[in-house]
């Protein structure tokens, strides 16, 4: 048994992961379909499946729109006796200069509704975004299965 440092914690227990290259709008449809199927498979309710697929759609569209190319991985995450879904989206695009601003409802630079990031955060249980201007963006989001559902 090995101990985990704080930095390793995020990736602990990730298994059964599917990687999807995100290079065009068609990959958005593929990613959300895979996400929904996995969510159904591990026992999320149908409303939660739709929420997960919608969040995937928003985050994948950000990649296509701003970075053009990137990758999404969708997998099962376990923490103690909790199970959930983890989605990691990575790109090497232009990055987000002001994350706090980008996380505000209605703030948009891409001609959209400005709901993608804050809306996705509302639909998931955990949402992390790391972005460096000129280097890229990484979004990690998780949703846990409700025990008594």
């Amino acid at each position, binding site marked *: 048994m090995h101990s985990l440092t704080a930095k390793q914690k995020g990736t602990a227990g990730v298994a059964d992961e599917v990687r999807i290259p995100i290079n065009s*709008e*068609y990959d*958005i*449809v593929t990613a*959300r*379909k895979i996400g*929904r199927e996995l969510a159904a498979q591990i026992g999320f309710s*149908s*409303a939660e*499946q*739709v*929420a997960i*697929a*919608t969040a995937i*759609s*928003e985050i994948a*569209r950000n990649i296509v729109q701003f970075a053009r190319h990137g990758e999404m991985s969708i997998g099962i995450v376990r923490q103690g006796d909790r199970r959930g879904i983890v989605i990691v989206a990575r790109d090497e695009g232009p990055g987000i200069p002001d994350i706090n601003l980008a996380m505000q*409802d209605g703030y948009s630079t891409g001609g*959209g*509704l400005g*709901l*993608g990031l*804050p*809306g*996705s955060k*509302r*639909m998931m249980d955990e949402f992390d975004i790391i972005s460096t201007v000129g280097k890229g963006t990484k979004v990690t989001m998780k949703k846990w299965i409700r025990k008594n559902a």
Partner: protein
Amino acid sequence: MLVPILKQSNYLIASIQSELSDDDLLRLRENLVRQVSKFRSTGVIIDVTALDVMDSFATRTLRSIAHMVRLRGAETVIVGIQPEVAFAMVQLGLRLEDIATALDLEEGLAFLDRKTKGDGRRGG
């Protein structure tokens, strides 16, 4: 996947059959706006029962279809938004704003009949 558009008397009915890419949605918009003019339609129904995701792009595109159709003097009603989809849309913060919605195709047709056949002219 191309969305079939049926013409039924003065109405056009676009019935989405499967998940749509962004491109499919934009093509639907183009076809609908063109056909409203061609057939002098007074109403458009978009049936989204088969859609299990309505993200911000889909919502924005449907909204723009309704606005364009209105500029051509016709009414649009969106029918068949699934309960789970409605739930996710509200969580995401999406609104259809002034776009009419109805439970299903039947209700949508009834809505258009009231809207377009009532006094012959659409009110403000």
